[in-house]
């Protein structure tokens, strides 16, 4: 089943945790979040080359190590714990997984080796101005010009790390359903503008496409089925990151409750605080089990209809549950810290902002619950 970590996965976890504890302390995270690029290119290359994190879950024929979503979940949980600002989620969990889901060998050969080496960053642009993550709501268009080249028009919002990405995979409507298109970040007719994101540790961009030249990725015909699967994979990956963030909030709250003395005793000795912490643990442990189960589904080589539906249900429930659990943990962490938790200097607010923003990307919990209701026939 793979619902507990293997020894190798635990080793990977400890490796990444130790690395980030040393290289990405809070002061560094705050420095990077205020920097131009929003992340540290040196650390980025170290993660790719020394640790091999970028290629970890890419197939061997594209320069990767051939692991899967469970290992990616382990890595992202640790990054979420540290609020690491880096285009790792966008490049690996979103763009690389989408390329793989497309089954387009040529595109994979073109982009994935560069991604594995840390030389190329990428992202996927899904939402239009309407802000909807429903594939049926996409209005950006792709048309062939006189030379037979694809040209994209439209505006994409909430593109994760869209301003710094070398390659942007754009979802656009063709005469024949949805298509996925690769756009070079320096193309004529392509403009990426940084949005003022609530979460300062993850960059979001608006992308304007004006008759912008693009390469089609994936087979002819409607791309919706593989896009849906790719988004579900990204949703589960994001949930792993959310679990890491929630765990950091709980750890921080518990540590503070042990040392903060009011009324001559640690506040953690009060039942009001104990119950909050116990409730957070309950939700986080439940969330972990759900993420591990969902990730394990992708390693069993069954791509028949029932297995696909099981994964879709799982992705939606994992997203709804982990989103809610993280936001709850982030709010309780502030409450348990009291006044100090409301300051700019304390990291508690960075977790709340990451939690709330993650909750609203890829479809909010209410939308995910609606999807579950539909899939299970409620």
């Amino acid at each position, binding site marked *: 089943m793979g619902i507990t970590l293997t020894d190798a996965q635990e080793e990977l976890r400890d490796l990444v945790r130790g690395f980030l504890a040393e290289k990405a302390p809070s002061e560094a995270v705050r420095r990077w979040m205020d920097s131009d690029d929003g992340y540290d290119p040196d650390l980025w290359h170290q993660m790719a080359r020394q640790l091999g994190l970028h290629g970890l879950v890419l197939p061997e024929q594209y320069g990767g190590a051939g692991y899967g979503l469970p290992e990616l979940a382990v890595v992202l949980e640790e990054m979420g714990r540290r609020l690491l600002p880096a285009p790792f989620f966008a490049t690996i969990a979103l763009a690389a997984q989408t390329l793989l889901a497309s089954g387009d060998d040529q595109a994979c050969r073109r982009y994935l080796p560069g991604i594995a080496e840390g030389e190329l960053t990428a992202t996927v642009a899904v*939402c239009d101005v309407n*802000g*909807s*993550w429903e594939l049926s709501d996409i209005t950006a268009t792709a048309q062939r010009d006189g030379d037979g080249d694809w040209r994209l028009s439209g505006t994409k*919002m*909430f593109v994760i790390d869209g301003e710094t990405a070398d390659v942007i995979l754009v979802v656009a409507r063709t005469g024949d359903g949805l298509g996925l298109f690769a756009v070079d970040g320096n193309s004529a007719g392509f403009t990426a503008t940084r*949005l*003022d*994101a*609530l*979460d300062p540790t993850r960059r*979001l961009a*608006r992308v304007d496409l004006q008759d912008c030249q693009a390469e089609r990725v994936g087979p002819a015909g409607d791309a919706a089925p593989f896009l849906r699967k790719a988004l579900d994979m990204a949703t589960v990956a994001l949930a792993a990151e959310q679990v890491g963030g929630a765990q950091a909030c709980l750890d921080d709250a518990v540590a503070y409750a042990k040392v903060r*003395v*009011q*009324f*001559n*005793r640690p*506040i953690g*000795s*009060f039942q*009001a*605080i104990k119950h909050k912490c116990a409730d957070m643990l309950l939700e986080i442990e439940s969330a972990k089990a759900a993420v591990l189960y969902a990730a394990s589904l992708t390693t069993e080589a069954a791509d028949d209809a029932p297995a696909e539906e099981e994964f879709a249900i799982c992705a939606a429930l994992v997203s709804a549950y982990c989103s809610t659990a993280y936001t709850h943990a982030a*709010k309780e962490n*502030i*409450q348990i810290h*009291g*006044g*100090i*938790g*409301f*300051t*700019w*200097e*304390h990291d*508690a*607010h960075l977790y*709340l*902002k990451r939690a*709330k*923003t993650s909750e*609203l*990307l890829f479809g*909010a919990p*209410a939308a995910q619950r609606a999807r579950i209701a539909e899939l299970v026939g409620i």
Partner: protein
Amino acid sequence: MTEVITDADAAGARAAAAGTDDEFRKALRSWLTDNHPGKRPKDPGERQVWQKAWLAKLYDAGFAGPSWPRAYGGMDLPFARQIIYQEEYASARVPGPLGTGLGIVGPTLITYGTDEQKRRFLPSMLRGDTVWAQGFSEPEAGSDLPALRATARRDGDEYVVNGQKVWNTSADIADILFTLVRTGSRESRARGITYLLIDAHAPGVTIRPLRDLTGGADFSEIFFEGATADPLVRDRLADFEIRVRIMRYQGMRTIESILAKGEPGPGASTSRLFITAFEQDLHEFAVDLLGSYGTLGRTDVHSVERGRWVWGFLRTRASTIGTGTSEIQRNTIAEQVLGLPYDPAMPPR
């Protein structure tokens, strides 16, 4: 020193107060409408000047301090009239007081101050000429306020104060700080605490603005605007409607209880828990309704209503912390309203 207004200065206000409740309401409403200071300046410095000008105008016209004695520039209205005043003042959307003195140290001075203190401090506080800020909480004394450590030592005619205070709303613009300091031993807890007024501009006083998790500081307000609603949204909106109404009923009940029995009754003690949970839930629900746009901050051109709901979501985290956490409030209600036993492990009060 701020001049105490005379009846001649405030003829309109005095005449309004002499009429029926309804006439009073109408007179106040039309004065507030006619004298509305217009749009709030964005620049903090300009905003302070604008707000001070308004407070002075209000005071000079005799429409300041509904509950305060006339001798110190107030209106000395009966309780029912104070309610009318607050309703009209709130719906006129005119600026509120500067600093936090008016509702906290003001009534304390009125009740316990010497005549000289009252003459010296109250009129200028009411007119906005001096801005007051509270200095109670400390890094190690939040919920447990009697644990505060800042000390004051008597030296001739003066007190010499040492220590640190936090969470001092408006302290960056304050002229006078009203503080709680320790003059007794640490073990004396609440008995060893003295209430001191400190000149905020005095040498040795350093005030730094505290950047909170919203990235700044501001006021928040609550109202509904028509959201198109699916069944789930309708259900939540209906729940908020219910809670708004209950808050109003509870407020009415408290007011009636004060009028009839001179006491607010047990419902008043729970209303803050009710309101703080409400404002947190309301703002978070609004952010959820924004969907993807809820991920944007205040300065983005795409942010909805200039990010007021997202900002409110952050700002209302303080609602269950400031002026006593919700946990402490529940303890107080359990012990003082319900009469449950004190925790024997807690220090004496």
